[in-house]
């Protein structure tokens, strides 16, 4: 193992890869943080309302939080695909697209089974 970080910007393809990875990771990280925060708040609020108050929409709020949580990983694949394609990285754009299609097909297939 090397002890030093590869000097960025020494070669131009290296630099563009590093920048692409950075952009994708930044967007994905932001999306995951947002998804986590929104779903955790909705679930917590829903549970507190259900347990401590007589209002009836507690479980519905929890469900909204759970749906947000389930959508988050798919949105991050979508976001990564858009960024890869915008950066001209067709290979990874296609990789992300096929993942999304397989997940969608799995969902549709699972529904009928």
């Amino acid at each position, binding site marked *: *193992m*090397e*002890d*030093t*970080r*590869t000097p960025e910007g020494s070669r131009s393809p290296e630099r563009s*890869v590093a920048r692409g*990875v950075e952009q*994708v*990771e930044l967007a*994905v*990280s932001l999306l*995951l*943080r947002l*998804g*986590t925060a929104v*779903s*955790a708040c909705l*679930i*917590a609020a*829903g*549970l507190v309302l*259900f*347990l401590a108050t007589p209002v009836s929409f507690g*479980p*519905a709020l*929890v*469900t909204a*939080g*759970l*749906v947000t*949580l*389930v*959508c*988050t*990983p*798919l949105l991050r*694949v979508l976001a*990564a695909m858009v960024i890869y394609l915008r950066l001209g990285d067709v*290979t*990874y754009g296609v*990789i*992300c697209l*096929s*993942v999304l299609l*397989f*997940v*969608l*097909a*799995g*969902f549709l*297939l*699972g*529904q009928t*089974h």
Partner: protein
Amino acid sequence: MTPTLLTLSVLGTAVAAGLVGSMLGLGGGIIIVPALTLLFGYDFRTAVAASAVSIIATSTGAAVAYLRDHITNTRVAMFLEVGSTLGALSGAFIAGYLPTRFLFILFSILMAYSAYAMFRARKTELPEGVVPDRVSQRLQLRGSYYDKALGRTVSYHATGAIPGLLLMYVSGAVAGLLGVGGGTFKVPAMDIVMRLPIKVSTATSNFMIGVTAAATASVYFVRGDVDPLVAGPVALGVLGGALLGSRLMVKLKGSTLRLLFVPLLLYVAAQMAWKGVTY
């Protein structure tokens, strides 16, 4: 038990599951399902649906810290997700044509072998002398991260991209066919075949499992198996546990992480062998 006490107990169990799952790169379903059915008396469908949600919570909760520390390799993850999602998809198609008992026994042996390989490499902190193959080079399956336990930056390169992809396909199909061991199989595959540092394998596996579970969880949602009053506290607790676990894991040594894996793999191997024998 009062509803509040029950919710809090489920929440507490979920925190533990999130902690373990996020540190070892698996969904924590091996804790959630037995806990909900045996400890709290929920039926199997509700427990499995809550477990699918918990996999997403582990993945999402832990990914925040792992991405910030650059331990997750997003390229490796996206590439391998092609295999795991396609595997999960085709698992349903081929389910009727494969001898389930044989599969259970086969995977039990594979898991036991993984445990042995992990144990043998227990003193290895980082993989050495990795020669990247052509596909790994073409897809730039490499990266570097700052290792907090070692106090230095670690650069690595993957190898065996195609065998790795095939194993992810198998892991996805197995998770679909046998209902167990999807996440548990991914980490040894990345560790042993793709020769990635153990922390990268764990964090990347963690990142990947959320996508496959999203398809499964949406199916359970449509079927009405997701009980918000069970899955809600599970998701919340697991998110909290995963946030905590991911901060803990980056401070651990890779060799410690390996040792934590050995009993887990042996447990899954025994569970699969038992299911195969009694099937």
